C-alpha cells in the first residue's frame, strides 16, 4: 500500500478531510465539538501547561499501516533537519518542560535521530520514543537501537494492534506481528518491560476496525496473559487509544461505509471528564519543519498555532501556556468513552 499522497488521493489534503468531517457532521446534525465543550463549561479549551514536547521528526516509515493518521510510509520524504532539532532542544531545556516525546513515521529513520536523543539525554529530561518495533529488524543500521535506547534510558512506546497475528497484520501489514514479537523479545532481553529494571516498555492498542477500545485495564490483562503465555513477552502498561477519523482511517471509514456510524458513536460517547484531560492541554506538537500545533492530529490536519508563537524557534512557554487550543470535529476522538491520548485512556 502507498500513502494517500503517493496515490494522488484527494484525502491527502487536510482541507478535504476537514470538509468531509464538517459535511458528515452537518448531514447528521451532530453538534460541533466547540459547542459540546461550551455545554461542559470547558470552552475555550486552554492548556494546563507545556509539559511534553512532542516532535514529529518525519513522515518516512518502513510500514504503511492501514489506519495511520500521519499518512506515513516508505514513499514520504518530509524530515526534520538538525537545525530544527537544535531549536527543539532549546525549547526542551526550558524549566517546566519535562518530557521529549519523539514520533514519526518511524522516527529512527531520521538521520539525526541518535544525535537528538543524545543531546536530549544531556538535558536530563524524560525521553519517549514511539517505536513501531519492526524498524528494530529493518537492517544493520537499526539493529543496535535497543541497546542505544537502554543506554539513554529511553521509554519505548510501541504499537501492537492485537495479541494475535491476524488482526495485527490486517492493520499493519503482512508479517508485522511476527517481527514485532521478535523485536519485543530483544527489548525484553535487555530488561525492557521487566519489572524493576528501570527500562519502560509500553504497548499501544488501537482497534483494528470502526469500533472503540474497551476498558484499558481489561485489555492490558488480556495482552499480558496472552503475550506471556504464547511468546514469553512482557511489557509494562498498555495504552488503549481511539482511532482518529482522519487520514488513512478516514479513507477506510469512507470505503466501508462506516463514517456516519463512527462519528455518531464518537459524539454519543462524549465524556466531559475525559475532555478535561486531553493531551493537547499538556503537550505541544512540533512538525518536521518546526511549525507548532496543539497535537499530532491537528498537525496532520495542518491546523497550525495562530498568534505570536507559531514556530519552535519562537518558543515562549508563558505565551503558549495561555493559548487557545484549536478544535474541530476530529477532537471527539479524544473525548469518547474513557478518553484517548498518546498515553491511553484518560479517565
Amino acid at each position, binding site marked *: 500500500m502507498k500513502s494517500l499522497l503517493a496515490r494522488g488521493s484527494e484525502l491527502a489534503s487536510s482541507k478535504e478531510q476537514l470538509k468531509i468531517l464538517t459535511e458528515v457532521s452537518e448531514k447528521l446534525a451532530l453538534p460541533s465539538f466547540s459547542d459540546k465543550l461550551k455545554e461542559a463549561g470547558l470552552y475555550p479549551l486552554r492548556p494546563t501547561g507545556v509539559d511534553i514536547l512532542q516532535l514529529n521528526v518525519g513522515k518516512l516509515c518502513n510500514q504503511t499501516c492501514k489506519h495511520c493518521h500521519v499518512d506515513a510510509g516508505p514513499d514520504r520524504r518530509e524530515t526534520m533537519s538538525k537545525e530544527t532539532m537544535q531549536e527543539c532542544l532549546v525549547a526542551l531545556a526550558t524549566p517546566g518542560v519535562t518530557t521529549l516525546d519523539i514520533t514519526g513515521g518511524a522516527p529512527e529513520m531520521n538521520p539525526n535521530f541518535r544525535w537528538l536523543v543524545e543531546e536530549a539525554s544531556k538535558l536530563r529530561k524524560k525521553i519517549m520514543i514511539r517505536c513501531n518495533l519492526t524498524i528494530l529488524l529493518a537492517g544493520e543500521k537499526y539493529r543496535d537501537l535497543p541497546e542505544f535506547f537502554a543506554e539513554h534510558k529511553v521509554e519505548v512506546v510501541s504499537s501492537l494492534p492485537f495479541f*494475535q497475528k*491476524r488482526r495485527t497484520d490486517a492493520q499493519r501489514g503482512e508479517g508485522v506481528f511476527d517481527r514485532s514479537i521478535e523485536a519485543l523479545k530483544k527489548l525484553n532481553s535487555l530488561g525492557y518491560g521487566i519489572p524493576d529494571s528501570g527500562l519502560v516498555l509500553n504497548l499501544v492498542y488501537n*482497534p483494528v*476496525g470502526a*469500533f*472503540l*477500545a*474497551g*476498558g484499558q485495564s*481489561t*485489555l492490558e490483562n*488480556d495482552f499480558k496473559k496472552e503475550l506471556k503465555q504464547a511468546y514469553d513477552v512482557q511489557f509494562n502498561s498498555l495504552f488503549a487509544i481511539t482511532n482518529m477519523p482522519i487520514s488513512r482511517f478516514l479513507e477506510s471509514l469512507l470505503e466501508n461505509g462506516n463514517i456516519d456510524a463512527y462519528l*455518531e458513536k464518537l459524539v*454519543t460517547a462524549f465524556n466531559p471528564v475525559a475532555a478535561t484531560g486531553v493531551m493537547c492541554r499538556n503537550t505541544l506538537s512540533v512538525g518536521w519543519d518546526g511549525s507548532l500545533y496543539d497535537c499530532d492530529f491537528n498537525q496532520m490536519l495542518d491546523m497550525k498555532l495562530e498568534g505570536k508563537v507559531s514556530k519552535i524557534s519562537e518558543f515562549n512557554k508563558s505565551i503558549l501556556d495561555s493559548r487557545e487550543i484549536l478544535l474541530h470535529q476530529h477532537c471527539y476522538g479524544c473525548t469518547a468513552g474513557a478518553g484517548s491520548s498518546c498515553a491511553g485512556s484518560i479517565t
Partner: protein
Amino acid sequence: MAQETTYYKPEDLKKFGNIGEFEPDLAKKFFDYYGAVFADGALSAKEKSLIALAVAHVVQCPYCIDAYTTDTLEKGATEEQMWEAIHVGAAIRSGSTLVHSVQALNKVKELGV
C-alpha cells in the same frame, strides 16, 4: 421504487433508550437492572458480553447481534472466543430441540409402535 418491508432497521438500535417515552419509571428500572447485570462482577464484563452474544443468536435478535458483536470486539474478544460462544448457544438450541425427542420416544412407545 419498492417500499422497504422489513420491520428491523439498523438505525432503530439507537432509539432503544427512547422506550421510556411513555413509561419512564419502568424503563429506568430496566436500564438500571441492565447496567448492573453487565457490570464487572463474579464474571467479567467481557465474559458477560460473550454470553450476551450467544444469547443474541439464540433469540435471533438482529439489534442484539449488532450490539454485542461490536461490544465483544471493543472488550478485546478474539474471533475464536466469539464463535465459540455462538456455538455454545447453537448447541443448547439444538440440544433443547433434541432432548424433547424423549417425549416423542415416550409417545411412540405409549402408542405401542
